[in-house]
């Protein structure tokens, strides 16, 4: 099988380059090799629009000499180029300043075995192009059956196979294979000048876990049409319910505020809050790299540290920052297996679910907004300030009465964490950062 042969070829390439770096004067050297192949098809109005099929690979590394670091990367994997880059990096490291915190972590045993983590779906090898194209065609076809849908952004199917290899001068040399599948469709509804639009799709490591074309189409149609005939609302402070996708967005912002990198750089409003209460007792947030089959699961991080389960916020108390080796040394903490590239990334980062159903949360709301989508930027980790363009559904007496558009939502993450009133039971790992439906006591909505 091709991948097996290549896997050992790249493992050997990485190990040889580690040896080459050491021979040429690097104190420490770490090589990552990436090999990927992708298939993607975009369908629009019943026809194939784009078909992409390709494989590529790349290598990146860092060297440390006299506690000075240099990085490099290349998609040209010829020996001549790689040797030149390693020599350049060793020479270039001289120009940086010594940094006592720089360097590779000590070697650690990887206990989890790759197969029990369920990262790779062998179906990817037998899944025919025709079938992938048909799934995308079918998804869009079903969505367009609803005549209130007036245009299509198109549907897409994508499958990817990725092999990651890591070798370093501490003696680490391992790799793992992963698969990813996704299916989704984007739609428009309404007349030319009053269009509404939305998208729905799913991603999974296993083909069998993707949502069906029927389900994908139905959700995309519902999400699009529920926005038709929106009303403007007055500027006011009101309770806001976040749909799970919106909670995930909020958690993504929380992640950037508890990542060890932003903490030691003091670019986070939470940087001096370790051990302190930063939210109410309903809030428990976890990062877990070990959950079998989930999108953020890996046996080890970008530095070869085994992934783990880390309690980040426990009943409102900030328990841990997520760290790579560098951030951990800076903060005198332990690495949590969250190295990603040269920085810190989430594994499966989620808000623990509550007991109440999302419908019960809506029913209990007298008057307020369900936040369904946001657009724009407007997240500031230094202050925790949130300010975004928003779309939603207006609720009165526990019932959705009409959609709302052209509003903005603003608040502060610190305040939001302290004013979460309800947490739903609907946690699903649709992405590596995930959360259930939540209700916030009050946020500012700007309208007319």
């Amino acid at each position, binding site marked *: 099988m091709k991948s097996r042969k290549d896997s050992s070829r790249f493992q050997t390439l990485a190990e040889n380059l580690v040896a080459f770096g050491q021979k040429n004067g690097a104190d420490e050297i770490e090589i990552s090799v990436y090999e990927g192949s992708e298939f993607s098809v975009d369908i629009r109005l019943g026809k194939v629009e784009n078909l992409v099929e390709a494989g590529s690979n790349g290598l990146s590394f860092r060297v440390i000499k006299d506690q000075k670091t240099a990085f490099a990367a290349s998609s040209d994997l010829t020996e001549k180029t790689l040797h030149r880059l390693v020599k350049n990096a060793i020479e270039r490291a001289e120009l940086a300043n010594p940094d006592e915190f720089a360097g590779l972590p000590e070697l650690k045993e990887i206990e989890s075995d790759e197969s029990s983590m369920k990262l790779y779906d062998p179906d990817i090898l037998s899944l025919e192009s025709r079938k992938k194209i048909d799934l995308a065609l079918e998804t869009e076809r079903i969505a367009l059956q609803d005549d209130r849908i007036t245009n299509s952004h198109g549907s897409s199917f994508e499958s990817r196979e990725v092999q990651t290899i890591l070798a370093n001068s501490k003696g680490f040399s391992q790799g793992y294979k992963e698969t990813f599948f996704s299916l989704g469709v984007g739609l428009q509804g309404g007349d030319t000048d009053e269009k509404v639009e939305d998208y729905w799709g799913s991603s999974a490591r296993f083909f069998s876990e993707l949502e069906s074309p029927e389900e994908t189409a139905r959700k995309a149609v519902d999400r699009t049409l529920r926005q038709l005939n929106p009303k403007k609302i007055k500027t006011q402070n009101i309770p806001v319910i976040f749909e799970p996708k919106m909670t995930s967005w909020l958690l993504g912002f929380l992640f950037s505020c508890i990542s060890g990198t932003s903490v030691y750089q003091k670019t986070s409003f939470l940087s001096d809050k370790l051990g302190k209460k930063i939210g109410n007792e309903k809030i428990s947030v976890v990062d877990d790299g070990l959950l079998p089959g989930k999108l953020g699961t890996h046996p080890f991080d970008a530095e070869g540290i085994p992934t783990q389960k880390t309690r980040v916020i426990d009943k409102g108390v900030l328990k841990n920052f997520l760290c790579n080796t560098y951030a951990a040394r800076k903060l005198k903490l332990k690495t949590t297996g969250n190295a990603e590239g040269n920085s810190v990334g989430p594994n499966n980062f989620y808000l623990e679910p509550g007991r109440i159903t999302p419908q019960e949360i809506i029913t209990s709301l007298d008057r307020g907004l369900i936040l369904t989508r946001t657009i724009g930027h407007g997240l500031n980790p230094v202050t925790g300030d949130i300010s975004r363009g928003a779309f939603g559904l207006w609720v009165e007496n526990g019932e959705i009465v009409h959609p709302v558009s052209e509003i903005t939502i603003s608040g502060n993450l610190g305040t939001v964490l302290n004013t979460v009133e309800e947490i739903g039971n609907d946690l699903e790992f649709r992405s590596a950062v995930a959360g259930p439906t939540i209700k916030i006591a009050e946020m500012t909505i700007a*309208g007319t």
Partner: protein
Amino acid sequence: MKTKSTLAFKDHFNISEEELRKILNTALLKGGDFSEIFLEYKTFNFINMEEDIIKETAESISLGMGIRVLAGDRTGYGYTNDLSFFKMKKAAITASSIAQNNQLNTSNVLKFRSQAQNYYPVKKPAHNEDLKKKIELVKKVYLSAQNTDSAIKKVKVSYMDQIQYITVINSDGLVTSDVRPLVKCTCLAIAEKSNIREAGFSGGGGRVGLEYFQSQLSPETIGEDAAQEALHLLKASPSPAGEMPVVLAPGHSGVLIHEAVGHLLEADFIRKKTSIFWDKLGKNVASPQVNIYDDPTIPYFRGSYNMDDEGTAPKKTALIQQGKLSGMLQDRLSATLMKKPLTGHGRRQDFTCIPIPRMSNTYIDKGSEDPEDIIKSVEKGFYAHKYQGGQVEDSGKFTFSVSSGFLIEKGKLTRPVKQATLIGTNIDILNKIEMVGFDLKFGLQTGTCGKEGQAAPVCDGCPTLKISAMTVGGQK
């Protein structure tokens, strides 16, 4: 005439003309209308300074080819970072499968076309300069920010330069190349006073050499601007919320034009009728003072290029003239399907990506009003000064995020305010542009635009503008 540049694909890619034609023909074997090879070699340098030390440097090389086949409105694409004839031919076979007729097309004889103009005649590209010189530059920016005020507690400076060699070879017989330098230096400063922390940002660059940082924008200015913004925000209060008149500061406010107009005039959205503008060509969509252009030919600008990523010579394109929708941004596929002329706006992030219509340097042209008169005309409103960015949907709904601004009270800028999102629907807001200043400026040469997962360097510009009413999303 065969100068050295005519053989760029031999210098960097080591492929013969005969091999290239074979690959183009292989791509057409299933009956495609058109095939195209995109060869890319890019080197990238990076320096990062924080916590008073040069923390790291990086170098990267990106080498690869992409092959595209067009068959009607269908696109087949393959790419590889292995430039062996075997792998490239394999990518061509993959791309060819999009076509399904039996018509046999072949490539024309290859003929080199040199670029009519060089919009970035840089004497010594930054990537050839000594790394020590670049480190000196970074340190100057860093110290300047740090020394602005004792309240500046943290500074981060990033420098990057790249040079991209690209060659496009297509089945029409076109062979053409571009060499694009790009430099960027940015500074983030954080100020802290009585437990309040705020961040400021500044930077510059373009398709320039290092002399830019002497003649155009000094490292000291970059550092001080970032620090001053952070200090300014320490004094700012939360911004108001609600609908009110908005005045946009000249320069980076062009981001509004980029979002509200530019994206929705990219021809793919027009062709697919998803853009609100699709049926509005020749119609009035803005107030009559509004003139908007996209110009990839502004010398040394970040968004400029000598040819687009399909080998087309770029043209300054009028999008809105006197309030009337007058043009759109074309790539080859959309122009062919819509039977419209090419404008040279087919761009791609790198060899792994299909080209799509994109903006370059987009701006609203200067008007006749004195900027002071514009501010004076507002009784109570919002002055948008600096931005984090923006986003738009095809329906025309857009936002842009203001990091710092001022209240306007009785015709004067008064209290500094922070963090607000402006939201509107494009045609509505374009019609509410009441006054256009004579002070056209361009924003920082640091911007990157994202579309369908592809990043492209861009620049935006705009004079002082007054919008009669817009929703401002603040916290009060």
